[in-house]
């Protein structure tokens, strides 16, 4: 069957549920099409009724498989995924810098960063040097895309592994905290004060040796509650967030159930902290 239509049914037949299910999970298209009409025209289904019956079976199978995969995820898998994502992002950025330097000598107006690499990757190379530069740009783009896919994977699996932590921290920060602690169990055993400075170990040890003030926050800095709070109150915000994150991690590890009350309590506490800033204005 031809691949031209771009629909999920393009290289499957109704008696191949596995292929249809894989196509639904993995394929993509920029724009929707009149798939029922095209499927009938392409001979995939006898008529519209048969098409929708096949689609029902295929979407149920695809979603069942995808749900099962997400449920198999555990904290160890999540740690691998978030570390791989960070490595892909860092490497893509480093290579993009190298590429920018090189492409600048070959092409006029070569941009910077991943976007610059995308521009270079789309060019028609002229001569062996340009061929290498364009090929390198393609690798950079692939790495950046892989990082984006890993991020999407983490966003899907973190709420399965740690529903409370993922709700409070966001899926990626939740995965990062689990990775820094070395697992959900060890995160659940850490006091809130430790969670508050996870990822700021250098600053913490400098402080303990008496060379620096105590760090106010580690990776939780990227959370909107910390970053979006004015500087004087950021320590309070980080402490409040870390406290609820510790409770969330314990809930996830020992009970494994979602508890919406934690988020509500944190929202109230944050409103109080931010009200200080408004009162001062």
């Amino acid at each position, binding site marked *: 069957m031809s691949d031209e239509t771009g629909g999920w049914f393009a290289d499957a037949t109704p008696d191949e549920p596995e292929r249809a299910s894989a196509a*639904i999970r993995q394929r993509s298209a920029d724009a*929707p099409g009149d798939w029922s009409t095209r499927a009938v025209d392409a001979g995939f289904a006898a008529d519209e009724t048969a098409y929708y019956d096949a689609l029902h079976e295929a979407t149920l199978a695809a979603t069942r498989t995808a749900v099962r995969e997400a449920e198999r995820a555990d904290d160890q898998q999540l740690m691998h995924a978030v570390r791989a994502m960070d490595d892909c992002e860092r490497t893509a950025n480093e290579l993009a810098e190298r590429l920018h330097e090189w492409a600048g000598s070959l092409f006029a107006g070569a941009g910077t960063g991943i976007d610059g690499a995308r521009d270079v990757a789309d060019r028609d190379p002229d001569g062996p040097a340009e061929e290498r530069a364009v090929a390198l740009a393609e690798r950079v783009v692939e790495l950046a895309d892989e990082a984006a896919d890993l991020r999407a994977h983490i966003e899907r699996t973190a709420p399965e592994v740690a529903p409370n932590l993922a709700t409070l921290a966001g899926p990626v920060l939740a995965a990062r905290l689990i990775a820094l602690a070395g697992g959900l169990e060890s995160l659940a055993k850490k006091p809130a004060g430790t969670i508050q400075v996870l990822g700021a170990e250098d600053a913490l040890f400098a402080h303990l040796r008496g060379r620096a003030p105590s760090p106010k926050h580690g990776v939780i800095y990227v959370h909107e509650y910390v970053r979006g709070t004015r500087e004087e109150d950021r320590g309070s915000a980080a402490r409040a967030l870390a406290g609820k994150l510790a409770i969330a991690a314990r809930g996830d590890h020992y009970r494994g159930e979602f508890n919406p009350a934690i988020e509500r309590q944190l929202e109230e506490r944050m409103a109080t902290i931010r009200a200080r800033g408004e009162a001062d204005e």
Partner: protein
Amino acid sequence: MSDLPAGVERRRFDGEKRLATQGPPVYGEPTADGWRAWDARRSKLGAMLETGMDTGLAGGETVLYLGAASGTTVSHVADFAGPTYAIEFAARPARDLLDASAPRDRLFPLLKDARTPETYAHVVEPVDVVIQDVATRGQAAVANANARFLDEGGLLLAAIKARSEDVVADPSAVFERELDTLRETYEILETARLEPFHEDHLGVVARRRA
């Protein structure tokens, strides 16, 4: 009070008149004579109908439902609409969505991210109505990205949750900002707060612009 879509009726359950559709029960809702009560407290679209918003729904439309969660609302939609595509991002509620979809042969569940329509455009056809209830930041941007499934004049029924955008800001300010973003792609026909059924939610009826 505007007309209810065909297939949705106000019927009496335990002496109380409530919205209802005909179909297999999903979430332990009361049933009577093959009809099942549609709980406006658990469904933003139910609340939009209950508060008398003119949703423009007539019944039998093709629907793309974003943020299907466990399938509470989308199961009612599939009861009165035509082919219905249900997008849900999280695996846990999608398990229940599968149970709601199995007995409804024109309800198609998809574990996909509503922020990236290209991951399901190979499955979803252009539809008459997009219904949106996603609790993620950038809700108006999600509606704009999914406008590709609507022809000019196609309907958007959205519930905007203020606390998903900014938990501490004034909900009215959040709604204004989201509506401004929506106007890039849609003409806003009607808005209404969904109290007392849902706190800090704005129901929006809009039409895809040219």
